[in-house]
């Protein structure tokens, strides 16, 4: 009988000990915030364009974490949908890009400076503060910071903002993928031993 009691006492002691350790650990190593939202946010393209129906990428990340569909980001394209499906263990959905422009072409806002009247509306609309200017002064876009989100175009009262394609430069040019099996690879130089 005493052996049984000793065993029970030992187990209870161990249970109390581990409980204390776990309780301490849960307080000491508490994770602040919701890490899944951070992870989702990191996968989104950060154009802050609002095409998903949320005022920015982070709000959409929060919405996804709460169960919203993960296919509403046209700028991210199918790759983002796949990455999100991978992260969340959900099904890969077809991209919901109805009415959105082709996202594969990168665009940048361009203000026709002669026509700008300096109303500051586009500055207020820009989600990443990429437009500089002051009231009644000409505005201009910091092209490097522009995410091409389109949000400045509608508020402009004189329609002087164009979305232009980002041209390919020597710095951004990359090699094409070779044509594939059965085709002659154009760029390959065949060295033969004559």
């Amino acid at each position, binding site marked *: 009988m005493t052996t049984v009691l000793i065993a029970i006492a030992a187990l209870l002691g161990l249970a109390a000990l581990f409980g204390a350790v776990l309780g301490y650990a849960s307080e000491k190593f508490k994770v602040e915030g919701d890490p899944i939202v951070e992870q989702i946010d990191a996968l989104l393209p950060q154009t802050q364009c609002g095409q998903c129906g949320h005022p920015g990428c982070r709000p959409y990340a929060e919405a996804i974490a709460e169960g919203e569909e993960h296919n509403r980001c046209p700028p991210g394209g199918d790759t983002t949908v796949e990455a999100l499906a991978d992260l969340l263990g959900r099904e890969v959905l077809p991209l919901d890009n109805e009415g959105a422009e082709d996202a594969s072409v990168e665009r940048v806002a361009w203000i026709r400076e002669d026509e700008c009247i300096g109303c500051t509306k586009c500055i207020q609309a820009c989600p990443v503060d990429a437009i500089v200017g002051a*009231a009644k002064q000409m505005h201009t876009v910091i092209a490097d910071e522009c*995410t091409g989100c389109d949000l400045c175009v509608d508020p402009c009262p004189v329609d002087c903002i164009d979305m232009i394609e980002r041209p*390919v430069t020597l710095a951004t040019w990359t090699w094409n993928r070779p044509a594939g*099996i*059965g085709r002659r690879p154009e760029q390959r130089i065949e060295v033969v031993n004559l």
Partner: protein
Amino acid sequence: MRANLSLLQHLVPGGRRPPVHDFPGGVHPAEHKAVSNQAPIAPGPRPRQLVLPLNMHLGAPARPIVAVGDRVLKGQMLAEPAGAVSAALHAPTSGTVVALGPRPIQHPSGMDALCIVLEPDGEDRWTERRAVADHTRLGPGKLIALLRDAGVAGLGGAGFPTSVKVNLGDHQRVEQLIINAVECEPYITADDRLMRERADEIVLGIQILQYLLNPHDTLIGIEDNKPEAIAALRDACADSDVEVRVVPTKYPSGGEKQLIQLLTGKEVPSGRIPAQCGVVCQNVGTAWAVKRAVHDGEPLLSRITTVTGDAVARPGNYEVWLGTPVTDLLHHAGVDKGRLGRLVMGGPMMGFTLHDPSVPVVKTSNCIIAASAEELPEPPPEQACIRCGACAEVCPANLLPQQLYWYAKTDDFERAQHHNLMDCIECGACAYVCPSHIPLVQYYRYAKGEIRTQTAEQIKADRARERFEARQARLEREQAEKGARRRARLEANRKKQEAAADHAPGAGDEKLAALKKEVGQASSAYKAAVKAAKTAEAQEADNAEELRARADSLKAEADRAKAALRDAKAATPAPTAAPAESSALADLKKAVGEASSAYKAAVKAAKNAEAEQADDADALRARADQLKAEADRLKAELREAKAAQGPAAAPAAPTPPKQDKNTAAEKPATVGDDQAAAKRQKRLKALKTAYNVAHKQYKEAHAAVERAERAGQDSEEALAAMHAKVEKLKAKADHCRDALDALVEQAKAAILAHTGKDLKTLKLDAARAESVLRDKADELERRRDTSDADTLETLNSELDALQEHAQLTRLALKTAVEEQGLVEE
């Protein structure tokens, strides 16, 4: 391998075998070096024009410091280095700068880049040269600056600015300075000839580099297939501490990391540069350029370029001015255009095919191969990978080429990176041995490019996120500050009122306040009326007269109120308004507000319910209707009460009806034109598309013609035909544009007819009204803390009037534009 090593022992005098290590893999392609290394270095052509790209080197393009039309002397700086990693650019001969614009350059993309075009005057007149006889007296700092200003960049192939490479921190100890004289790629013999003929100059250059880097050992690595060059270097190095080490011939032993491994046994870790292992590697040609820059005061103006291949009559090495078009160089070497199959810049293993022979020779162009179709034939079609593993055996970087190939092919870039794709030196050994003729290097280049793009996008996304979050934080902070200010103001007002109540609870103050309020209301009503009248006049509405009269009467009212206030202030105030009445009015207002907000909430709830198809949607909708009736009733009561109180107590009342009238007056006029406008809208759209297409075609054709003219290869007829085509396309585009313009004009005229204003005036009106409105809002915001309640009241009503006005103009613009089908997509 063993044979090579035994050969080495023969070459080393005294039998001392220098420690030469080995690197994995490697191939032995046919060398073809004898084609071009027989003749001594010959002077290059004297072309009609020199095209000098601003990015001949690795790093930031140089910044031009000359203008079109400037006359420059040989050796004069044309562009200065821009940024830390950059090199200067000099005039290879005297002449005139004739253009500064985009030209095709030495880049596999075939894209244009900014170039300085120089027309030589044939005099070849030097600018002032400052030669430094003893570099040790100059000091390292000035010496590095001199190299930077002389535009010296690596002549081996990458073109890394030398001044950056030799400018190491004090803490960085250089154990070995390696001079790369391997030249392992087939066909190329530029360094070979340079060493045979100018070994003394090379050694002087090496001594300058030694002075700058202070290395423990200095080694020259050279392949055993250049016995003459080895002998020449040995002679030149006889009484210096520079050691010539011969390595067996194997491609790619000239790769920087491979050569370091061969000579020192050190392996440069992935992602590091040799300097972090205490090794600095310089090309032998660079050493020569360093000597010329320091001891002769000559900046980098020319380089030795091998011109070889079956299609040239005089293959050999030429000392070519930088910027010489490849076409001129080929003609100089006697090219046979009929035999020319493939034109390659660089070696056959790592070079790229030139599609446009007008590109210039630059600092990194060590070889031009004008090969016949048999020599460098069309590559056979790619076949499926059979997983033979031959590529893995020859990879000098110890990678798994076939795995990398699969990952690049399936766009699995993450996996490719895990397999160290970025360590691939793109030497082409794997593709050389591939029995399936897979263009492996192209796959790796594609994957690397995609990875770089993705990384850049990630960086940009991170920055966008930061900026977005910073903006959110700023907006929140501003909101909070605003809220705090408002609370403080309310508090202050309350205190003031309390104090007033404590001090003098008499009726006089109250009456005075009521009077003030009345004055404010009257004047704001007057202002609003004036504005309304003006708008009506501008739009030639029928009721302009009426409105004007009303405004006058309101002004009289306001004046009267002001007089009353003055009187009241001067003496004991005359009783004008019953306080009980106004408090009743306020109560009523409040009730109206509550009722309408309740109604709105109810409508919202009903909508939500409908969207979710709940059962109680009907009930909610009914309740909303009920609430609306209630709100309407209260509003009517309020109106009556206000009317009873007098006309001055109805601020901004005249505006809403006017708006109704205006829209009503506009409608009938436009209804008839609706169809025409819709038709025009359709045509406009179609025309716009047609114009865009035509214009694009024209531009492309034009560019093609320009390119063809520059290349100067096509016949006269072909050019003429191209010109005719361009003209036709231009005419087409012009026609489209004219039609488009006419249509737009028509639409604008229609707007003018309907509204009495043209589109621009309308747009400007709208914009102006907006900005006046904003100014007023700003003023209100500014004075909120300083002014008393009555001024604020006045300002508020002015703001309301302005808002109405702005809305009106905006509406006018919108209807005009929409009706005429000028809506921008």
